[in-house]
């Protein structure tokens, strides 16, 4: 199912990055911890690099 929606690795990584940012909002709200948020931003950076070099 997922492979039908996301044909490229970059799409999967970007979608996960978006989901991680949403999850990090809850974590920051209740624990004030930015680690997951930084992880999401890192994921986003990798996703953008992959998208730039996608054909």
């Amino acid at each position, binding site marked *: 199912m997922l492979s039908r929606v*996301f044909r490229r690795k970059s799409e999967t990584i*970007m979608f996960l990055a978006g989901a991680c*940012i*949403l999850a990090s909002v809850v974590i920051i709200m209740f624990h*004030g911890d*930015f680690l997951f948020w930084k992880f999401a931003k890192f994921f986003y950076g990798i996703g953008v690099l992959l998208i730039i070099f996608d054909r």
Partner: protein
Amino acid sequence: MQWFELISFMRQAGLAIAGAACLWGTVFGIMSYRNKANMTGSIIYQWLARRLMWLLYTGAIISVVGFVILLLLFPASAHEGITLVPEIAEITRALYATAPVYIAWLLLLVWGFSSLRFRTHLTYKGWSWFYLLNFFLIAVLISFYVDIEGGPLQHVIFYAFHGFHSIFTLGTVIVLDFIFLSSKSSQILQQHIIPLFPKISKIIWIGLALDSLSVLLIFPEAVILSPRFFFAQTVVGILIMNGILLSGVLTRRMIRTLNKGEEPLSGRWLLFADIAGSISITSWMSITFIDFFDGITFSYPQLLGIYVVAIAMVYTGHAVWEKFDTTSPIPHVMVIEPRT
């Protein structure tokens, strides 16, 4: 919430729309020139470049009116929920410093509008140069909105990226939406325009990356855990997930339909496309808007409620546009000068 925050947002949004119209006007002009062998493609790209003139002048009017009001009175600013809040004096200095650039830009716009050559049979080369010149001036105006004399270099870079990325993000999303709506009435337009969407999306992703990079320069000193921050981060998460579905699976499905002559998109796909487009445009507008309101007092649920209502309004606006848009999909007369 103060009135000058609204005017600052107006100026930024106007510059972003005008800047993106110029960026893509230049690109379509070049594509028209490079596709001369394919007459239909060349004409369509030139038509697109010409059509973006509407967005350039609309954005210009909004931003110039905002600039004049700010110059006469005064401002404040911000983004992504994480930002430095500049001093009024820093913004006022930047307003005065950029006044000559605004005058040069206005002269260029007036010349473009009044020139018969521009209005009737401008060539692909001419469009590109006109847009390119406009783009450089707008890039200066949107990047240099705060003058921190002798301030740290990372703050200077932060403000420059923070301002400039709106051309790649908010402005480009509006251009994308505009050309998508313009192409809905014609299959031949869609065949040339929809395959460009993944490439245009790359620029939007790069724009968001520029903003994220700029945020890293001021992290954690500028983080304030307010409803504004949580709302902006929520919207960023939504727009990334929505954007990847829009530029991925949805665009692929549309291209397949157009290329292979498969059955047209079902009502469910069309609904998905309209909702995703509305979420995209509302999200970019929201995070740009909210960052201009430093003292916003709404709670997180209230902000989310307003965001959902705004998506519904944009969706309704799309539906109204489609119902009443009577634009001729292909220009009746298009002059393409032979290569000399």
